[in-house]
Structure formats: structure tokens, C-alpha cells
């Protein structure tokens, strides 16, 4: 690896990290798991002058549920922690389905969910999952903390709403209204490949009625796409073959895929519909919190 020259700092407090970032301005980057930043630096696609390694910051490796069911994921919680999490396996079917599909075991050992959200890669899996769950990102800067809904957080490909002197310290998934069902499906040409297409579906149901639905799409647009019309088609109804087909079709319509070496736009759109239909069909067939 032969990156451009850069300065490296590894502060021990969030305040110090923020001070360093403020001084570094637009030319500073936060290093958490490093699974995206380091390859970009290797290829010299990214050439930050300052890298602020936050791995020494204490108390950010957690993922835990508040008493009301709100899920909080710290900035240093690794994909592997989530993959092995009994908490997620029992309460978060969409997240539990996505965690083992993130890249490969080596990446999962180091990479972080919050880092993946910040990286804002249109092919990133977690952004779709968190978006489908109505989640948010907590940013900390010189003036304290603020919460940014995931719907606003990603502003474009590889772009987010963070100010240069802010650090994303936590991702938050709100408590469910009812029982969770859902899943994440990803088409890859080989294990560990970036998603050709990924689909996250998160439902909150009361009895058979869908009280809240979130559908988000990976890899089929310039950013993660919230398929709001598809979700709306499900809300307030029970899952039927007709509502599933309507949601699949609406999701495919929301996709903005481009033809590339992973497949044609037409194929990717078809895959969106296929995956929405597959996840929802499983949701309708399986008990709550078990569908994936």
C-alpha cells in the first residue's frame, strides 16, 4: 500500500478528536474500521492530509437496547459484533439478516456500521437497513450532539451531512410499534462482492396488519433509495399476494439503476422486485421476528 503522505493522530477523547478534525477541516478523515477509507487511500482515490483514528476512544463499541426497545449502536461496534449478536437475532430481523452479508469475515471483524453509514457508498448495505428501519445518526461536534435522521444523513454518493468537525458517534434504531418482521437480500457475483442489488424490508406489525413499513434499496441509484411508495402500499393492510406484488412493482419503479459490469439496469430493476417479493412472501409466511 502506497498512499499519499498523511498525518496520523489517535486521540483518546471525543473532544480531542473533534479538535483535531476542526483543525484539519476538509482535509481530515475519521478512521474507524478503515475498510473503505484504507482501500481508497491505497488507490490514492482518497488523499486526506490528516487521518484521525478513533479506535482509542473509550466506550463506543456497544450495541444495546434502551428499556423502550430503542437500539443504539456505537461508532466502534464492528459488523462481526452485530453478526454474532443475540440481541439482534431476537429483535431485529432485518439487521440480523444483513450482518452476515456484509463483505467478508475479515472486513466484518474491523468494519463498523456507523462508519459504513458515514461512507455513504450507494452500494453499502447498512444504509439501506437503517433507512428501512427509520433510524438516525447521532453526531457530536464542538457544540454538542445532534440527531440526524437517516433520510437526511446521506446527501449524495459518498457524501453525508456531517460538518468537518463532527464525528458520528452512534446510530439509533427507534423502538418498534408492534412486532418486527423483515429481511435483507443481496445479490453478489461472489461472496464478499459489493451488492449488485440489495433490498432491505422492515415491517412493524400488529396482528396481521402492517403498522409501519420501510423498504430501502442498495446499489440501484446514486445513493441509497427509500422506496416510500412501496412501503406506503403495505401500511395499514395485511400482507397479501396483491399487496406484495404492488410493493415489489413500486420498489422497482423507485430504483434508478445504471447499466454496468454487474448487470443491466433492466436486470437490476427486476432484481429489486424479485427481492421485495421474496422477503415479503417470507414475512407473510413466517412468525414475527423470525423472518429474514
Amino acid at each position: 500500500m502506497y498512499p499519499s503522505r498523511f498525518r496520523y493522530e489517535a486521540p483518546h477523547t471525543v473532544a480531542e478528536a473533534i479538535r483535531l478534525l476542526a483543525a484539519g477541516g476538509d482535509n481530515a478523515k475519521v478512521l474507524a474500521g478503515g475498510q473503505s477509507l484504507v482501500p481508497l487511500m491505497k488507490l490514492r482515490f482518497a488523499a486526506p492530509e490528516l487521518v484521525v483514528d478513533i479506535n482509542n476512544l473509550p466506550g463506543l463499541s456497544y450495541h444495546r437496547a434502551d428499556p423502550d426497545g430503542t437500539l443504539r449502536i456505537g461508532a466502534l461496534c464492528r459488523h462481526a459484533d452485530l453478526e454474532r449478536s443475540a440481541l439482534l437475532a431476537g429483535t431485529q430481523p432485518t439487521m440480523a439478516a444483513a450482518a452476515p452479508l456484509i463483505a467478508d469475515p475479515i472486513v466484518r471483524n474491523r468494519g463498523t456500521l456507523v462508519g459504513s453509514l458515514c461512507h455513504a457508498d450507494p452500494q453499502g448495505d447498512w444504509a439501506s437497513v437503517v433507512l428501512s428501519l427509520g433510524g438516525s445518526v447521532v453526531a457530536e461536534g464542538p457544540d454538542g450532539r445532534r440527531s440526524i435522521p437517516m433520510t437526511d444523513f446521506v446527501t449524495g454518493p459518498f457524501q453525508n451531512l456531517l460538518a468537518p468537525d463532527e464525528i458520528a458517534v452512534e446510530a439509533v434504531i427507534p423502538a418498534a410499534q408492534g412486532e418486527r418482521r423483515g429481511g435483507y437480500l443481496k445479490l453478489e457475483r461472489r461472496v464478499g462482492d459489493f451488492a449488485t442489488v440489495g433490498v432491505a424490508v422492515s415491517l412493524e406489525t400488529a396482528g396481521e396488519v402492517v403498522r409501519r413499513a420501510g423498504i430501502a434499496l442498495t446499489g440501484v441509484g446514486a445513493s441509497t433509495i427509500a422506496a416510500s411508495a412501496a412501503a406506503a402500499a403495505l401500511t395499514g393492510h395485511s400482507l397479501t399476494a396483491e399487496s406484495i406484488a404492488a410493493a415489489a412493482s413500486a420498489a422497482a419503479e423507485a430504483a434508478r439503476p445504471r447499466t454496468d459490469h454487474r448487470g443491466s439496469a433492466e436486470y437490476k430493476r427486476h432484481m429489486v422486485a424479485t427481492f421485495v417479493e421474496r422477503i415479503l412472501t417470507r414475512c407473510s409466511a413466517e412468525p414475527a421476528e423470525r423472518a429474514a
Partner: protein
Amino acid sequence: MTGPGVAGQETGAYGAIPRKEDARFVRGQGTFVDDISLPGMLHGAILRSPLAHARIISVDASAALAHPKVEAVLTGADLAGRGLAWMPTLSADVQAVLATDKVRFQGQEVAFVVAQDRYAARDALELIAVEYEPLPPLIDARTALAQDAPLVRDDVPGRADNRVFDWNAGDKTATDAVFATAEVRVGCDMVYPRSHPAPLETCGIVAASDAVTGRLTVWSTSQAPHAHRTLYSVITGLPEHKIRIVSPDIGGGFGSKVPVYPGYLCAIVASMITGRPVKWVEDRSENLMSTAFARDYHMHGEIAATADGRILGVRARVLADHGAFNATAQPAKYPAGFFHIFTGSYDLQAAFCEVTGVYTNKAPGGVAYSCSFRVTEAVYLVERLVDLLARELGMDPAQLRMRNLLRPEQFPYTCPTGWQYDSGDYPRAFALALDLAGYQGLRREQAERRARGEYMGIGISFFTEGVGAGPRAHMDILGLGMADGADLRVHPTGKVVLAISVQTQGQGHETTFAQLVAHELGLTPDDVEVVHGDTDRTPFGLGTYGSRSTPVSGAAAVLAARKVRDRARLVAAATLELSPDDLEWLDGKWRVRGDPDRGAGIAEIAMAAHSSLELPDGVEGHLDASAVYNPPNLTFPFGAYICVTDVDPATGEVTVRRFIAVDDCGVRINPMIVEGQVHRGLADGIGMALMQAIAFDENGNCLGGSFMDYLLPTALECPSPELGATVTPSPHHPVGAKGIGESATVGSPPAVVNSVVDALAPFGVRHADMPLTPANVWRAIQGRPVRPDLAVS
């Protein structure tokens, strides 16, 4: 795993012993080129063209030269001043070392920076200003011969088009006659896409030029160190005895480390200029974008048969994309390699193929990735054609193959294009594969699944390779005949050092060759040290590729050992005060006929040969011996492969459920190493069939320039293979062995593709080109296949 009734198998020193070299590799103590560090060593980096085709207006390196850590910058103009801007390729074309006039592919070498460390060398690349005048690139090989195609090689005086060569083999008239009267004819266009061997170790060199002694020492990732030494001498004018090439441990080659690359020459020149050692090691993207690719054959094949399934003939027209420079590495007489073995494993009346090579604005290469000199493409073509014929006839593809396979009594068999297959029992190997697979049961399962709307495929490939190049009367590279030497030194205590001309890149030479010699001399493999990869310490030979090590160099080692044994007999006779005729070689010793308890082994005899013992007239002391082996023919390994896949028609995803591989490579010296080679080759084949291709967009941008886009299969894509073996010894190899290094890479892709196409038969799919990615399979189901060599449209 041993075949039935094999003489010599699993006896003596043969057998599945652990590899001697693994003791250092599993400890991380191998020494690869990038591990070599010399005092005062500098580091090189290459500036590469971002464009596929452009005229170079200017190259300004002044800012790079001003960098405090930069020691030198080489440009094409600098090399031209030394007569080194161009170098000969292994196919007698020329290739730019550093571009002077034009760049002809994305990633082509433009300048070489030499700096005090690698980081500074990379930084300085960004300080070199190159002004390009973009030219229209030639990307689609099928348009290369059009009137208005951009001319790639205007450096060659008088060249008016992009044709590299026209070549053919077989009897056109006879073949056309067979086709004209055949009851059934089936044809198909198929692409064997450009792929890349992607060895885990990229290419690299440490060049150390000594101005005082005039010696040049090169450590490099070379599969052919002796050939490289001769080539460097020819290119640079340095006397050959002043050049030493060392290939230390090599992390995979697969043919891609046979050529001399521009970076090697740049490092050598830079060392001469600076007087200091210069290291250059390319990164992954450089490796994928600029070193020898494989395949890139656009084929039209036809097969003719009787209505009841007797195959009569095959013919093929091929457009071969050679990239910007014709730099394939193969015997000079065969510009399309051994493609004309495309008659396969069948008893045919006639065959004819014609191959046209073209230049395009892509990286040079073509013969790499364990291809047995294009046997890969040939086997793919004929095995797809046989499946297409089976479909046309409504016959089971296994039955059709069994009906047409060559019969054991037909060997040695001369095929319609002239190859003489040395030995084979094809029906036996095929029957074993069908049995291991449970073929009839699989067909029943397939029918049941189809009834449930599930798509399962069963694909067969039966292949014959010709490997072990080769007879020097017919086979040379740049005039160097393809014979190999072996030197055997027997120390007084009977321990042996074998020096060989071939170079392991992971094949296990240090073990297999020790077993070969030990077996001949009644020693253990631990008694034999194998020296290789250093031209100062080993005899001349052309190196390891094309599965030639055991067929050629292995034979040389055996012949040298037999010379030792013959001399040992004379010495033993003198020791025992008997006539040599009174001795016979039995159980690893020279023993007295009729009194086998009396005798001497090599260790005792070696001590005697070095002692004060009076030797008979004409018998030299010591036991050392040398041999050069000029193979009388290639060896022809073969195999029967069956692949079972499951296809999800909604997503196009293919799962390889089972892979059954029966290989016959003659006598197996170390069956474990043979099986390891087969495992590796099956992974290669699954990778090529399902995910690998170096495609280009319309501007000539390489779409496979990293492991994010050029995909290597993992354990999750490769099933645990089910292996079987038959053993049909080669009649002309001293121990009956044939090459195995490439069999599985050659044989497996058509099995996978035949399996997927078989799964998709209910959709009316006749053919789909590799790689069968989910998107490509889905398009095939739609009846709208895509060109895998171009960006998806």
C-alpha cells in the same frame, strides 16, 4: 486414489508424502522477490497510460526529478537513446518498454521513476506531466479488420491493418466434404473471454548491476530464468555469462511469469544508470491491467455427425485478440498455440481450423492461466459443440460421448490435425466418472426437479491435452529449443543434489523431483536436495509452464539418475570384485544375482566412488551425471469431468453443487500433489466459467483492474471436489508420467457451462458465454445474451 493395476505406483519413493517446501511456507519463511533487500537499494515505480490509444505529445519529468528523494526518471526518449525503447516479445514481435510514439493500451508503461523509497517513487509519478492526443481506440476485436479500424501498430513500417497472423491446421477440402454430406451439422458462436491468471504474488524484480565486475544479477518472478537470461543478453548486449537470474520462491505464475515485462528492463537499466540495486514490484491493479492476460478467443465452431450420433468432423474459425503487442509465449511454429487439438477425444474423419490474430488497444498476452498453449480454448469449443450436437440429436450427452470416444486399441492415435496421442483408455475414465457421479440418478433427480419448477444442470466435459513441450525439432521459443537439462551430484555419503532447469511456482518440484531421483537410486526423498531457479547453479532449460516440468525436466532428472545408477554398477562390481553382469538392480540396490543379500546401495557405492578404490579402465571416479532431455512427443493427459449446478432463474444465480473429476495423467509421482493441482485447476475453471472476465468499455477502460471487479472464487463458490483417477502410462516418458498442472483448468470450464446450459434447457437456451454471472444468466434466459468482452449494453 490409485488406479487399478499400476506398476510402480505407491512403491519406492513415490507416493503421497508431504511437500518438502511447505515447511518454510507454512512458517511464513519463504523468500519471495519482494523479500529481497540489498544495501543501497532504490525503488522503481511505473507511470502508466490512463488512455487506451493516444499519441504522446510530450513527457515532462522535470518536477519529478526535482523531488528530493528521486534518483532518476526514465522516459521512452531516454531508453530510445540507448536503443532500448522497444524489446522483442516471445512471439518475435516488438513491444514498447516505455512508450515513445503512442500509448496503445490503458496501463501501458510511459515512464519509470527511481527513488529512495516506494512512497516517494509513487509520489513522483504524480509530478510527471504527459500530454496526450487521444486517438480512437480499437476495442472490439470483431471490427479490427474493418477498413476504417484505427491502426494500432503504425510503428511497423508498411503495416496497413491490424492483422497479426493467419494460420490454419487440418485438411480443409476433406473437412468441407465431410460437412457437405453429413446428415447433421450444428454450429455456434462462442467467446472465450479474456481472463487473467492473477497469481497472488504480482510480478517484480530486484536488478543489481555491478560496474566493476560487469555482472548483472537479477532476482525476478520468472517461470523461465534461463530463457530470461538469454533474452536479457540479446536485448541489452551484456555477455550472457555475466548475467545471473535468480527466481526465488514464486507465488504462482500460471504462465503469466513467462514473458519479460517492461518493468524488468526498466529496473535493469535504472540499476546500470544509478549503480545501485533497483527493486520494482507491481501492485495488484498493474498486474491485472498490464501483464499477460489469457484467452480472448472469438470462435465459431461447427460439428458434423450422422443422424444416429456418429461424430464425423469439426471445423472452426477463430478471431484471436492479441492486444497491442503480440507477446504470447508459445512454441514459435504455432501462433495459435496447440489450438488445433480441438478435435478433442473423439474418433473423427476430418477437421480444419483457421485462426486470425488481430491487434487491439488492450494489454498484450494471450497464453497464460494454465492454458496448455490454448488447449483450453480448444477443449471448450469441442466440448460445447458435442453438447450442442447432443441437444440437436435429442441424445444424452454422456451417451453421445461414450459412443464417439477413441478406443484404447486406437492408440497411439494420430488426430486429423496431426497430433499423435500417446496413450489413453478413455471409456474407462469416463465410466468411472459417470459411476462416481451416479449419473443416471442425477438425470432422474433433474427430471423430478424440473417437474417442480427447479432448474438443475448436469454438465460433462471429456478432455485431452497435449503437454510437455516439446520435441525440439518442432518446438522452440525465439530459437531456443524446448529441451531441458538436469545435473545430479552424488556426495560421498550418498546424499544427492539435483539441479534442474525448471522453476517451481507452487507445483512442488522440490518434492516431486526428489521422489523421482530417490526412486531411481534407492534413496528417500529426504536424501535428495533439489536446486532450481538460479541460472548460476542449474543447467539450461526453458522453464516451467505448459505442464512441462515432469514430462520434460522430470525425464531429464530420471535419465541423469539412471546414468548414476549405471556407473554405480561398475563401481559396485569393482568393490565386490565381480563383473557388472553379475549384478542386478533390485529393491534399490545393486545385488549379486542369485545372492541378493550381497550387494551395495548408492550410499556405499558413492563412498567407494570417491575413495582410493582402484576403478576399472574407463570408469571415472565419483557418480555425478548430467542429462538433457529432448522429448520425442508431447504427453497426452486426459480426464472426464461432471459438474452439477443449481440455477435460480429469477436471479440468475448459479450454485455449483458437485464437481466430479477423473484425471489420467499417467503414473502419479506424488498423488497428493496431483490432487492439489486438480483442486486448484477446478477453482480456476469455476472462476472463469462463473465470474471472471477482463472486459473493456468503449473507451478502452479496463473493467477488471482490481479484485473488487476481477473476481476470484472462494471456498464458498467451489464445492469440495470428488476426484477419481485412472492411470494409463505414457509409453515414451521414462517413468510413464504425463503433465497434470493444467488439466483441471483446461477441462472444467466446459463442464460448468454445459451444466448451466443444461439447467436452462427448458427456457430454450442453447448457449451462453462465460462468465455466467447472475446478470448474464438472466439475460440468457431472456433470450438476449450479452457480449462478455465488452461493457454491458
